[in-house]
């Protein structure tokens, strides 16, 4: 838990890598994933960097791998995941991989080329066979080559043409036969008719068996055509047209006999070819087997190698060109481990010169690293979704572990619903290591990774066509504003980063079932706690599926009251019951039916001895669920509870600021900021909490009719008046209140002017004492900064004094003042509005209770109409409806809404009291296993 309190100490360090050992050192570091490398040549474009040749070689290999994989997919083989994580290959090994993969690819290319040509040949032969067979039907008519166009053509041309010529023509009927893609048939037919003006007869028929399309690889039903025509001119034209439409034209023998000959020849050719093809296929399968065996390991290896070279591209060379210098952000705790990795790296590469790491001072703010485990990760990501903590700032996540589920549970208080949620989360937690769950989440994580790699920075709107691009663009136009009060949108937008960890914001809006599942799975511990806390608050509210449970006997005695007030025969004037007394609808008992028939509502008076026997041991007394003024009672209770919890929560937030001020050596802020803030909050709202408790303790049921109203008192406090109709709570109330308001008002100018004036004075003092600021060393390029050693202190001082220069001082002061003014206004107004904002606890818990009650009375009660077997049959569908609605509306919808509001209360109301969240995460260079999918 200590690691969660604030982010770890991170230092800037330089790695001195001997050029021979650099590769293996970076490989070692990548396996351990400790450091974040900084780009030392940001101005050098990608293709001018040092190791661009090696990167290109890796890409060449990847190209080969892609080819191999395509072939595998074409053959219907599935590539398994890489069994173990192989280390990045050494140069010689990489060369071997390259050689072998290229050789395999070459082999595969040849074989599949052979196979493709064999298949093509076979297909052509088959097509030819079909053409001949189908053509038979048109041409082997009993009439001597009597083709259909003849009669018509003859009748048109007979008067003009010479009969001898006609004879000649008749013999010269020719055929063009072939196959065509079915989509092109109509256009082809039309064009033929138009271009040749109908001097031909074309017949089309579908081929009986589907065949492969060489262009797309799909299986389609080709169409055979047979065109009969006269004359060479038209013949040429037809051939040209069929060329244009990518038809396969086959020679069509004129005579029946030669056709039969050709067909038998084709048959034997097809048989021969099939045998050859089969052998080729077998050989191909052997080659593919080899590929399946080797490819996964190769891919991981080469990807690692490429990653290493990309990192090495970010390093710079020293003057002697013998040593690579890398700059890294490194957790101070891990420095020894880094040194260890470097030692191993240089040992493995056989280099005689040791590589080493050295810390250097920096004025830059280091990245934030907060180590989490599977339990805390969910809570940390809630905080990170708001903003990554500034370096070494107090982290709200450890407190959120309890407050978040608790605040959620206040709005979701129901034993039954809480139990369902708890069990669901428990199932996920217990089976989190089971392969099916893991696989599902890994799958999704893979796609997240892809998304992360695909969309970089402002290119958010680009690429992935299916993603919510229209939306992303709208956001770019500023139409969707991230605002605390439009959380409904905001949350869905940010959802990817809330749970998906690393999903781009733009992608969050594209929700697929897998991603929703991942959202729940990643937050399983959070849901577990939310469920458990809901059970607790459910007991407090005494609600289980909106029904009260009687665990302890009720503290109210109806019998005593009945005896006392003689409800049976005496008639009391019915009075309006005060709010804090249960008013019951009369129980149905026989002997008092006359009285009860005239009195719809009866009051239990706690002032009567024996009716109220002291408070209920735990939570709300179940008798309230029968009372007609149940809601009035709960509203008052929940409203006060919300205000009390809210003010405590906010006060805690302000107090957390202490750790920040102490840690950053800004003790003046303790006095000048934290103190006035605390005074302001406590004097106004702390006093309100005091009033609530005071009244609760001081006034009992006996004097409830004269109890003063806190609300009126609180308003009077600000107006400096007193109200005669409202009794004072205690003596001397008015002066106390006046002092408190005066204190609160006095703390505002302190808050507003304190820090700016203090900084101003201090700066003036420091300028007179030491004219030259000592931050000069940090301004130099980082590579020369070798005089390190005591850098930690230097950086801290540097952060604090901010490297002042005399010119910037004036505008600096204005900036500080503006900043403080904004902070003051925000804080003072925020105290009012945030307190009001906590009332959402009341509103949501009320909504939840009412909704579940409505569901019970409107749905489930219908199942109890008859207490017979028939009633039991009715109960089944009714219960089904009840169960579905409970899960869909109360658990999922209401749960999401309560989650949303809890999130908002944490982000806006709690965290703005102390949390800056302007940091950036440390993303170490690591060969993460899921990045290889």
């Amino acid at each position, binding site marked *: 838990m200590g690691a969660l309190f604030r982010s770890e100490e991170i230092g800037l360090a330089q790695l001195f890598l001997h050029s021979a050992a650099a590769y293996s050192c970076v490989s070692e570091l990548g396996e351990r994933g400790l450091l974040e490398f900084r780009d030392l040549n940001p101005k050098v474009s990608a293709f001018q960097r040092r190791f661009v040749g090696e990167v290109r070689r890796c890409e060449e290999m990847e190209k080969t791998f892609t080819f191999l994989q395509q072939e595998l997919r074409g053959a219907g083989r599935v590539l398994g995941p890489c069994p173990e994580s192989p280390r990045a290959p050494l140069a010689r090994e990489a060369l071997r991989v390259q050689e072998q993969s290229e050789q395999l690819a070459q082999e595969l290319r040849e074989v599949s080329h052979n196979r493709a040509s064999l298949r093509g040949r076979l297909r052509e032969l088959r097509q030819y066979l079909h053409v001949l067979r189908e053509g038979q039907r048109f041409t082997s008519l009993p009439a001597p080559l009597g083709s259909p166009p003849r009669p018509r053509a003859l009748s048109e041309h007979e008067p003009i043409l010479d009969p001898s010529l006609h004879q000649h023509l008749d013999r010269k009927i020719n055929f063009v036969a072939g196959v065509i893609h079915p989509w092109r048939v109509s256009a082809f037919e039309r064009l033929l008719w138009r271009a040749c003006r109908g001097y031909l007869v074309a017949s089309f028929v579908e081929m009986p068996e589907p065949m492969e399309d060489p262009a797309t690889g799909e299986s389609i039903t080709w169409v055979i055509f047979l065109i009969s025509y006269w004359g060479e001119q038209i013949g040429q034209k037809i051939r040209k047209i069929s060329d244009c439409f990518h038809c396969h034209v086959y020679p069509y023998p004129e005579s029946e006999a030669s056709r039969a000959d050709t067909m038998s020849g084709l048959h034997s050719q097809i048989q021969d070819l099939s045998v050859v093809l089969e052998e080729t296929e077998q050989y191909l399968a052997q080659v593919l087997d080899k590929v399946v065996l080797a490819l996964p390991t190769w891919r991981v290896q080469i990807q690692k190698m490429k990653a290493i070279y990309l990192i090495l591209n970010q390093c710079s060379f020293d003057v002697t060109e013998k040593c690579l210098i890398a700059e890294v952000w490194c957790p101070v705790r891990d420095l020894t481990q880094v040194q260890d990795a470097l030692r191993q790296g240089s040992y493995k590469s056989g280099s005689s010169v040791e590589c080493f790491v050295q810390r250097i001072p920096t004025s830059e703010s280091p990245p934030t690293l907060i180590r989490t485990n599977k339990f805390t990760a969910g809570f940390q990501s809630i905080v990170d979704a708001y903003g990554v903590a500034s370096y070494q700032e107090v982290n709200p996540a450890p407190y959120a572990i309890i407050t978040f589920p608790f605040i959620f549970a206040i709005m979701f208080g129901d034993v039954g619903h809480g139990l369902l949620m708890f069990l669901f989360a428990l199932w996920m937690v217990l089976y989190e290591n089971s392969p099916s769950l893991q696989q599902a989440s890994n799958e999704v994580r893979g796609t997240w990774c892809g998304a992360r790699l695909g969309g970089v920075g402002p290119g958010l709107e*680009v690429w992935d066509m299916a993603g919510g691009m229209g939306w992303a663009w709208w956001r770019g136009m500023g139409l969707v504003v991230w605002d605390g009060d439009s959380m409904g949108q905001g949350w869905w937008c940010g959802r990817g980063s809330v749970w998906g960890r690393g999903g781009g914001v733009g992608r969050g809006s594209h929700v697929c079932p897998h991603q929703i599942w991942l959202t729940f799975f990643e937050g399983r511990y959070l849901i577990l706690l939310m469920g458990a806390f809901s059970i607790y608050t459910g007991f407090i509210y005494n609600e289980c599926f909106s029904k009260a449970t009687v665990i302890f006997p009720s503290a109210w005695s109806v019998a005593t009251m009945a005896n006392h007030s003689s409800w049976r025969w005496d008639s009391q004037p019915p009075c309006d019951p005060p709010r804090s007394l249960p008013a019951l609808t009369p129980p149905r008992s026989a002997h008092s039916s006359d009285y009860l028939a005239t009195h719809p509502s009866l009051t239990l008076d706690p002032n009567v001895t024996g009716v109220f026997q002291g408070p209920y041991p735990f939570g709300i007394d179940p008798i309230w669920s029968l009372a007609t003024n149940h809601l009035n009672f709960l509203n008052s209770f929940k409203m006060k509870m919300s205000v009390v919890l809210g003010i405590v929560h906010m006060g805690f937030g302000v107090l957390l600021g202490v750790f920040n001020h102490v840690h950053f050596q800004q003790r003046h802020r303790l006095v000048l900021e934290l103190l006035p803030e605390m005074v302001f909050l406590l004097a106004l709202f702390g006093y309100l909490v005091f009033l609530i408790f005071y009244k609760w303790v001081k006034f009992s049921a006996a004097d409830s009719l004269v109890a003063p109203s806190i609300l009126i008192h609180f308003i009077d406090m600000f107006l400096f008046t007193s109200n005669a109709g409202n009794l004072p709570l205690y003596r001397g109330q008015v002066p106390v209140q006046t002092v408190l308001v005066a204190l609160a008002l006095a703390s505002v100018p302190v808050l507003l002017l304190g820090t700016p004036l203090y900084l101003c004075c201090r700066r003036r003092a420091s300028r007179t004492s030491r004219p030259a600021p000592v931050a000069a060393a940090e301004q130099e390029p980082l590579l020369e900064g070798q005089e390190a050693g005591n850098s930690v202190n230097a950086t801290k001082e540097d952060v604090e004094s901010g490297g002042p220069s005399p010119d910037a001082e004036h505008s600096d002061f204005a900036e500080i003042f503006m900043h403080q003014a904004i902070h003051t206004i925000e804080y003072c107004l925020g105290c009012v509005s945030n307190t009001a904002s906590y009332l959402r606890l009341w509103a949501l818990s009320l909504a939840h209770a009412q909704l579940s009650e409505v569901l019970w009375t409107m749905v489930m009660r219908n199942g109890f109409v008859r207490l017979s077997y028939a009633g039991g049959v009715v109960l089944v569908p009714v219960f089904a409806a009840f169960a579905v609605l409970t899960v869909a509306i109360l658990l999922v919808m209401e749960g999401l809404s309560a989650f949303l509001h809890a999130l908002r209360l944490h982000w806006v109301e709690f965290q703005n009291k102390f949390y800056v969240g302007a940091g950036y995460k440390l993303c170490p260079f690591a060969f993460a296993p899921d990045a290889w999918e």
Partner: protein
Amino acid sequence: MPGYSEFYFNVDHGYLEGLVRGFKAGILTSADYINLAQCETLEDLKLHLQTTDYGNFLANETGPLTISTIDDKLKAKLLTEFHYFRNHAFEPLATFLNFITYSYMIDNVILLITGTLHQRPIAELVPKCHPLGSFEQMEAVSIASNPTELFNAILVDTPLAAFFQDCLSENDLDEMNIEIMRNKLYKASSCNITIILGVFQSVSEKESYLEAFYKFCEKQGGTTAEIMRPILEFEADRRAFIITINSFGTELSKDDREKLYPTCGKLHPEGLHLLANADDYEQVKCVADYYAEYKAVFEGVGSGTGEKTLEDAFFEHEVKLNVLAFNNQFHFGVFYAYVKLKEQECRNIVWIAECISQRHRTKINNYIPIF
């Protein structure tokens, strides 16, 4: 409800507009071009393109990289995007997108006809066609031996029929021109004349195409018309200038020339009349001087080797107009502008690639930056 199209625009076209704007963000910036221009080899170029939105569109190319593969891949990418737009478009955006393809179709038809007259095999010509303008019957263009057959047999089934019909039936003179040219061609087979033939034909077809497109955009009204008007007017005027300049030294009479001018531009009618009477380049320039924007274009043209040609100046102006289209919302102009800008980007990349592969560094900066 013309004029209120903003209200319901997003219902039908909002998604595609968002998409096209997203794609627009991926158009290379001048910083990208500066980097590209520093490349030493085509492999460098590829490596740099990988860092842009093109991603690894060249990653699966086996064998040495050639300019034609780059060009093909660039076009293929544009084609994929355009087809995605077209397949998801509702009317009237669908018609608008069709209009964009028509100009490419016309170019392809002309290319094929000219190529066939030169006795080039069709297989050699087809890859040269722009993929945006390919259509089913395209390859059959080569079988036509005269314009009537071309129209009646092949083009009648295509959307281009309307434009060709105009130029074949209404403008008798044009048809006569074509016949004259064709006859000459068959006898003398002078390649110069072929090109002129191509130009005339393309011009006369483009003219009616441009006018139809212009009318269509005006009919849409609203922002679409507002945005497309200057773009199409400029397109028309550019054609008028180019026809005039190309016709110097040929036997095209001035009357005929005037008939070829598209009439939907800013030059219509006075400017076109003046252009029709121009005899040399200087006179054309004088005509341009009457119009502020064209004056600027002509003034930017230099005669030296390193300076801009008139074509480039026109392209530059076109880019400027197209970029403006993105400043407004709820209109179709962005689609047109995107396609044109992307085409210009292809030209730029190919130009840079040519310069790199031919080691012709001095001219490498003659590309036209877009953003």
